[in-house]
């Protein structure tokens, strides 16, 4: 297992496993938001805004994983 090969493997694993959690989190958030929207369509803008906020925080974690993967690959 060469050094270069390990680097490639590390980069792939970083991004692959790093997005499992955030993917799950975003799915849960969106599903709960849809449920809430179905129950109370009048609160649409409040639900939407807060859902976006929650998704953004979850996505930030995925971005951290992506940055690590890019760092391993290119730096």
């Amino acid at each position, binding site marked *: 297992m060469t050094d270069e090969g390990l680097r490639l493997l590390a980069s792939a694993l970083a991004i692959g496993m790093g997005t499992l959690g955030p993917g799950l989190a975003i799915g849960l958030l969106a599903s709960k938001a849809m449920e809430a929207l179905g129950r109370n369509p009048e609160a649409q803008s409040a639900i939407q805004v807060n859902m*976006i*906020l929650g998704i953004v925080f979850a*996505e*930030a974690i995925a*971005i951290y994983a992506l*940055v690590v993967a*890019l*760092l391993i690959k290119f730096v």
Partner: protein
Amino acid sequence: MGGLLSGSKGKLLAVIVILGLIASGVILLKGPIAHIDPAAEWIFQVGAIRITNSIIASWITVVVLALIAVLATRRMQLVPRGLQSLLETFIETMLNFVVSVAGKKWGRRFFPVVMTIFLFVLVSNWMGLLPGFGTIGVVRDAKAQFGEKKAEEVHATSFTKLNVAGLDVALMLPGGGEAAEKPKEASGHGEAAQAKPVLVPFFRSTNTDLNTPLALALVAMVFIEMWGFQALGPMYLSKFFNVRRLLRGEIFSGIIDLAIGLLEIISELARIISFTFRLFGNVFAGEVLLIVITFLVPLVFVLVFYGLELFVGFMQAFVFAFLTLIFGVMAVASHGEDHKGHQEEGEAAEAHH
């Protein structure tokens, strides 16, 4: 409306043409992928400072925004038309939104900073998608551009070279001309023969350089802290150094409060990191995606990802501005006035809806 593309036969024709373009691109336009660098490449030097292509792009963003502002407010009329009307609608919508989140008084104070951040990030993200960003540049020797050590890792891209006004300008093309062949000729002994030409783009989307998101995050943090001090005076620091209970003699609760204050400080610093990397990660990853797809399936197919990038650029601008707003609202909210603040916000929200 008649014409070549109407009807089901026309649609079939369009699909065939597109698939044909994609197939011919994959077969004919093959070449080594462009060099992707998280660090921005410098274009020219002013004394000891190296001006990078992302700095140039940020200047262009500023010029574009200033131009739009000047054009819209020239000869302003009471009943707006044209560009002035468009901008007024836009600004009014955003102002109502900001006021509905932050309350009337603080909403108007947050608005300039939040809106500036939104517009700057939006325009710079969308400008980075224009043709020419990252593809048109100057040809330089890898060693002169990157320094000895890094030049080893840089591989030659395929580009087509023109000579414009004495400068070697190049256009990056998958499967295009020169550098694809050069390394074979120059692969010999001696360093003089090893001149590795690289394409250094003139412009590069400004948020793909880590420095710009970091600068924006620092600016946002400075403003948030400033708003906290403006709202609460020096007592704003009591959020971080809560010695009230300690001074009253309750040692245990006092130490817990101090620990909570320390966590607050850490979370403030972590916000800078997360702001930076959220914006940088999204925009840089988008650029890498576009380059990879362009070199993988050369024609037409990359348009789908341009659509994604348009959306992502807008969302990241909105998120950056919105989070600045939210953290500002949290910073000016003092614990004593919580009920009054919420009531004010509730009234503002009701008035808005």
